[in-house]
């Protein structure tokens, strides 16, 4: 049996939920699928208060945002969602296959497809980086914030971007110590306020430092770090042993772009956005007519921008279906302006640079 929603959304994180909200409110029969146990994507682990503006729920803790996004549509008969459902394929006749609870194969043929699959974690090479106890930052967050299990007693954090800094703080809140945050670049990549709040808890941030080795036989029992020079090479004589029982890698994310490839969307490799991303326009449409992108799947950024892109994608899909969403042009412009506002400061430089490489048209033309 082939399910035929008007809109199929793959991914129930901030982008997917925002897209669903717009599409359903505009009257589209919408199905959302996600491979996790719960809706919310990465939001379910974000215990910290969000940045941005009121429109992106600034000041609200990430964990509270999924229910806010769902609130308006959860009882709408036009909306259904399936959990533990992994999209497995896209066929040239527009059919999306998915595996439901590892058991059942589902088939969808939507009129419009919104891909909001998010991102996955990078890893870095160092001796024994496959030892039990070497975890991605997301894994550490899942363990402690979703399931209430400590990843260990003393961690070493690799990476001082927002994720490395925030997860270090969350570890302290969970009663776990962090020996240090190690960052190969000369500066922290995350917000200074995040760095300040972990510094005053006694977590040292060591820039121009890298990890050489995880020490242990069956699991992590320690680590060796060293300073690096301008060419990112370890400086002999600067090696130090750090006591820890887990190592957390917060070394960046890359977009999960498999389905775009299967659908033959035009892709570009954009380092500023974390990897391969689909070329898109200001309505979040890819080069394939009925396929849209939103959130980290289109470029690594923040939950705040993911929510706005999702809203744009949902709105655009609804409009393309002839649903005539209320005040469409004004709402669309408002959303595009909101995105520009978030991105216009210095911390948005690399995003704007990245988007320039994969955007189909100038924003002034839309």
């Amino acid at each position, binding site marked *: 049996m082939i399910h035929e929603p008007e809109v199929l959304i793959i991914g129930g994180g901030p982008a997917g939920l925002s897209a669903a909200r717009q599409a359903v409110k505009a009257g589209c029969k919408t199905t959302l699928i996600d491979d996790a146990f719960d809706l919310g994507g990465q939001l379910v682990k974000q215990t*910290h*208060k*969000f*940045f*941005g*503006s*009121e429109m992106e729920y*600034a*000041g609200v*803790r990430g964990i509270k945002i999924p229910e806010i996004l769902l609130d308006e549509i959860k009882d709408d008969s036009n909306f259904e969602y399936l959990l533990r459902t992994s999209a497995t394929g896209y066929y040239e006749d527009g059919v999306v296959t998915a595996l439901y609870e590892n058991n059942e194969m589902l088939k969808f043929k939507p009129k419009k497809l919104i891909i909001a699959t998010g991102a996955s974690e990078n890893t870095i090479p160092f001796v024994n980086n496959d030892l039990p106890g070497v975890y991605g930052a997301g894994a550490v967050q899942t363990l402690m914030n979703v399931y209430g299990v400590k990843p260990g007693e003393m961690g070493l954090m690799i990476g001082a971007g927002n994720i490395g800094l925030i997860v270090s703080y969350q570890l*302290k*809140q969970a009663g776990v110590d962090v020996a240090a945050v190690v960052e190969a670049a*000369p*500066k*922290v990549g995350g*917000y*200074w*306020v*995040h*760095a*300040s*709040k*972990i*510094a*005053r*808890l*006694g*977590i*040292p*941030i060591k*820039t*121009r430092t890298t990890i050489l080795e995880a020490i242990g036989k069956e699991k992590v029992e320690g680590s060796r770090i060293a300073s690096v020079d301008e060419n990112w090479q370890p400086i002999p004589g600067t090696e130090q042993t750090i006591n820890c029982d887990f190592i957390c890698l917060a070394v960046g994310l890359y977009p999960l772009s498999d389905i775009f490839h299967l659908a033959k969307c035009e892709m570009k490799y954009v380092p500023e956005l974390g990897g391969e991303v689909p070329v898109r326009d200001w309505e979040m449409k890819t080069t394939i007519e009925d396929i849209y992108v939103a959130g980290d799947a289109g470029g690594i950024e923040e939950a*705040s921008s993911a929510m706005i892109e999702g809203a744009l994608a949902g709105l655009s899909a609804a409009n393309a279906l002839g649903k005539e969403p209320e005040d469409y042009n004004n709402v669309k412009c408002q959303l595009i302006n909101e995105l520009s*506002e*978030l*991105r*216009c*400061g*210095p*911390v*948005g430089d690399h995003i704007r640079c990245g988007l320039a490489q994969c955007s189909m048209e100038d924003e002034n033309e839309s």
Partner: protein
Amino acid sequence: MNPNIENSGIPSKEQIERTLPSKERREKGPYVVIECWQKIPCNPCVKACPFGVIQPMEDINDLPVTDIDKCTGCGLCISLCPGLAIFVIDETYGEEDQALVMIPHEFVPIPKKGDLVQALDRQGNYICDAQVVRTTQNKSNTTVVHLLIPREFILDVRAIKP
């Protein structure tokens, strides 16, 4: 490499001093101190203040600017700042050699009034004992802890040992 805000999260003396009002204002009563020096897209502090101390931002990436005369030291902004970067200092509180510092705190157990806690500086080092005068909470789950400390440390105490 010298530790600075960009490589360690620890601000310079000059950055800290820029957050303080005039000596005259400091002697009048409590005042807010916003340790936010980076242009990031963020503005909940503007709406957080019921007295209009934090000025509306034209660009969401602007640094917060305060009209410090309006500040009553209520501390609402402390619990709403996502960066936990806002504090209140009251140099008129307590004895001549004491002062009150209000800090955000998101750990359990939540300290109680009368507790003696260890106050930490920006590097997490113990700097002095502090007495908890009061704690306030709202639905944001960020506790604001009011600490009585020796006045000489008002520029240093920004956390307590969890």
